[in-house]
């Protein structure tokens, strides 16, 4: 027997109380309270659609409540393209059950069998023109019950809102300049804080002369706690001026040492490691390998590089603190704050407000602790802390650098008979709230500091970390996939969009492309020949058809393909890239096909895929965290350029609609396939394989020299 809760969607099993998700409020509105948060991906709109559909209310009645630990369901972290899957399924179930409960109450009040009742925009009516509404009945129907398994959501054919491209609920505020971002929130009595951080990450504050900072007009407090130091002032300008003065009085220990940026693979492959065999498959028939093709691929450290520097606000009242944050995980942040502050979690309220896109674990959580610590010096007034661009680009965690080696055993006809995939990388996750020690930056700076958390990898069952997407979805006869996680971490790493999937898909799809070329086989045909999953085959075929594969050969133009199913359990995506150039290449066009199952908001899915494709293009062509032996040197946009408007390729997306298949997220589906497609197009156009990202002019020239 399975337990009753095991049949509920995972988020609902963890937070079964119906009233924690849905409430009917005055003025004919319905408040929906998800535990997932808006990070620019449009999730709030998609969840509103699901609720409107199941409850049969107009979407304009749906009021989406920002997540807060004071009242919201605990849905962990908004990451991993899981929000539609987790929050969406929970809300669909909750709303179906709420609807049933109200229909039962209406049936009783109206004396009409519930099967003969209809709901239209919240009004419940039946034969003989009898009617009531959710709001009339709200006093009679308690939602303080746990969800049960019985509720049956509408079938796909009955949905009127989900499956349509409803306009995003947050966009009007953003085009009319109405305050919506945490950065724009002006609490009464708000003070401004800045934290003193070293130029070289890891350097410790040895001595501090506060004299000059104390003389800055508008200074309210200088807050120190061990090696943590910061200023609080009555304006941002005053806080900046005070920080500048404080910096002049600071003496630091040496930072680093950091690895040799020009030999990342050498560094990654020479560190102490923890080795895990991720998966293996043994061939049923023993075919002999005539030779082994061994290739190494690398990916650099990549910055999240949000357009907004991380920001938070905090306000103390006695031994209780209220925190406003754009963290992806409010409960997880609260858990870490409780450890650092040595307070019960109940004393801390963490409330979400929108920030800019974060693309993973950036400094959002770090700055929340900064605000909490600085607010201690503010006499009960709220303190807003915003990081500098420099600190955002040097002290926030980065996506981990990776070295990947694949050894493919080939028979005399260049058929793959064996496959060994090894990954060397730091862990890809050091998020707060998941360990006995805090992951927050200032926790390693205060008196009695915690050691800096070493990044780990989520379990393979949850999609893995460095090993994400390392197990081929292709039908190869044998493989061994091994992950080597570094036990040193000179450069701070944590979750960046896709974790290890971008690197692994780049490696797998590049090598497959190389083997197809060795065989003289079309790369699309080669992939289709090795794919059994019909949904996988379909996205490859649709992308090929849409890109009119294969366009005729023109000088200076190349075409390449890449495919993956994100996490091997999520969205299917195939990408075809068209590039031009002889050494300094540009990506002209990306054609993608995607299958996310049910697309709750098709335009939202397309937006995510387009955005992912352009961001991946930026990673592939331009991005690389720069450092010397003592510190990060790419601390501004000029040192860390990203793709510009003129450089953005045309992106053409086709969704394969499968309304009867449970939805999965789209936010991370495109990065791996696009990365591989561009690399393969470079080979097609220029005849060289570039196996080290980013694919820059220098790398292409180096590859050409190696080939000649």
């Amino acid at each position: 027997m399975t337990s009753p809760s095991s049949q509920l969607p995972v988020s609902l099993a963890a937070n079964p109380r119906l009233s924690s998700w849905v409430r009917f409020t005055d003025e004919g509105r319905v408040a929906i309270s998800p535990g997932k948060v808006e990070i620019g991906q449009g999730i709030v709109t998609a969840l509103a659609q699901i609720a409107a559909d199941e409850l049969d209310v107009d979407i304009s009645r749906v009021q989406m409540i920002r997540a807060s630990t004071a009242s919201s369901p605990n849905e962990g972290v908004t990451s991993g393209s899981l929000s539609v899957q987790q929050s969406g399924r929970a809300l669909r179930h909750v709303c179906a059950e709420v609807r049933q409960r109200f229909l039962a109450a209406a049936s009783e009040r109206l004396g009409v069998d519930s099967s003969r009742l209809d709901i239209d925009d919240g009004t419940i009516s039946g034969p003989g023109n009898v009617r009531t509404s959710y709001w009339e009945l709200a006093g009679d129907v308690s939602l303080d019950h746990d969800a049960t398994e019985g509720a049956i959501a509408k079938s796909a054919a009955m949905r009127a809102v989900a499956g349509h491209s409803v306009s995003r609920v947050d966009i009007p505020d953003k085009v009319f300049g109405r305050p919506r971002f945490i950065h724009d929130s002006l609490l009464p009595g708000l003070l401004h804080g800045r934290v003193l951080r070293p130029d070289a990450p890891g350097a410790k504050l040895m001595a501090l002369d506060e004299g000059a900072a104390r003389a800055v007009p508008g200074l309210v407090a200088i807050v120190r706690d061990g090696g943590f130091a910061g200023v609080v002032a009555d304006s941002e300008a005053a806080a900046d001026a005070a920080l500048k003065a404080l910096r002049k009085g600071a003496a630091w220990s040496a930072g680093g040492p950091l690895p040799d940026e020009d030999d990342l693979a050498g560094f990654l492959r020479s560190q102490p490691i923890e080795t895990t065999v991720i998966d293996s498959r043994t061939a049923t028939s023993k075919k002999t390998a005539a030779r082994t093709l061994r290739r190494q691929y690398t990916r650099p450290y990549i910055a999240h590089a949000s357009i907004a520097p991380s920001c938070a606000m905090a306000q103390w009242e006695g031994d209780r603190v209220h925190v406003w944050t754009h963290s992806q995980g409010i409960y997880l942040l609260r858990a870490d704050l409780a450890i650092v502050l040595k307070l019960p979690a109940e004393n801390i309220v963490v409330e979400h407000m929108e920030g800019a896109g974060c693309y993973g674990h950036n400094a959002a959580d770090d700055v929340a602790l900064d605000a909490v610590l600085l607010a201690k010096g503010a006499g009960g007034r709220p303190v807003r802390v915003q990081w500098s661009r420099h600190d955002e680009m040097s002290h926030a965690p980065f996506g981990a650098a990776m070295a990947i080696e694949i050894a493919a055993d080939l028979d005399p006809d260049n058929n793959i008979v064996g496959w060994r995939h090894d990954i060397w990388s730091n862990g890809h996750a050091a998020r707060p709230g998941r360990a006995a020690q805090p992951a927050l930056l200032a926790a390693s700076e205060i008196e009695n500091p915690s050691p800096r958390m070493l990044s780990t990898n989520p379990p393979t069952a949850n999609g893995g970390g460095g090993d994400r997407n390392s197990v081929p979805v292709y039908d190869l006869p044998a493989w061994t996939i091994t992950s080597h996680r570094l036990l040193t971490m000179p450069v701070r790493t944590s979750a960046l969009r896709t974790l290890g999937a971008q690197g692994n898909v780049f490696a797998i799809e590049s090598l497959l492309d190389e083997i197809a070329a060795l065989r003289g086989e079309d790369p699309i045909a080669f992939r289709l020949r090795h794919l059994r999953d019909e949904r996988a085959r379909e996205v490859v075929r649709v992308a090929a058809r849409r890109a009119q594969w294969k366009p005729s050969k023109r000088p200076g133009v190349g075409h390449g393909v890449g495919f993956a199913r994100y996490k091997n359990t999520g969205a299917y995506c195939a990408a075809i890239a068209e590039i031009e150039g002889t050494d300094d290449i540009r990506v002209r066009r990306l054609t993608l096909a995607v299958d996310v199952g049910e697309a709750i908001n098709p335009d939202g899915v397309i937006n995510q895929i387009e955005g992912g494709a352009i961001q991946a293009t930026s990673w592939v062509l331009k991005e690389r965290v720069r450092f010397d032996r003592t510190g990060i040197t790419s601390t501004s946009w000029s040192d860390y350029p990203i793709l510009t408007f003129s450089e953005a390729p045309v992106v053409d997306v086709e969704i394969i609609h499968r309304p009867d298949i449970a939805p999965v997220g789209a936010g991370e589906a495109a990065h791996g396939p696009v990365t591989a497609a561009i690399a393969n197009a470079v080979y097609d156009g220029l005849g060289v394989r570039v196996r080290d990202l980013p694919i820059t002019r220098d790398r292409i020239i180096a590859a050409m020299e190696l080939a000649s």
Partner: protein
Amino acid sequence: MPTIQFQLNGTAITVDTDPDHTLLDTLRGRLGVTSAHFGCGAGDCGACHVMVGDRAMASCDMPMWSVADKEVVTVEGLGTAERPHPLQRAFIAEQAMQCGYCASGILISAAALLRRNASPTEAEVRTALDRNLCRCGSHNRMVRAVLRAASDMATR
């Protein structure tokens, strides 16, 4: 402190300020006008763009003395929900953003472009937006929105 006068969204403004303070800080800190966003403080990203005359300019490193007697427009001054600027309508129609933190600076760059050039080509739009960074990858939607707004303005 010296007094500096300028026009903000059509209204005459007088502020007592250190002339070296930035316009962005004055807008956000003193005047409560928050659509212009801090992104880098170095004029590299465009999140803080405001329109001065018919030019989009970074306000994060623009000293107040340089604004004296100038006409400054922020997104609040482009239009409202009741009377939207064609660009605001077009950005909604095209759903032209993801997180939208960069959007107000981009709306301003586009508005300045359309003041100078009522019917830009796609390439001209892209060039005009090259000083604005977007990290979510909404570039093409934004370009489509600017072209849509230009076309709406031409047919009105």
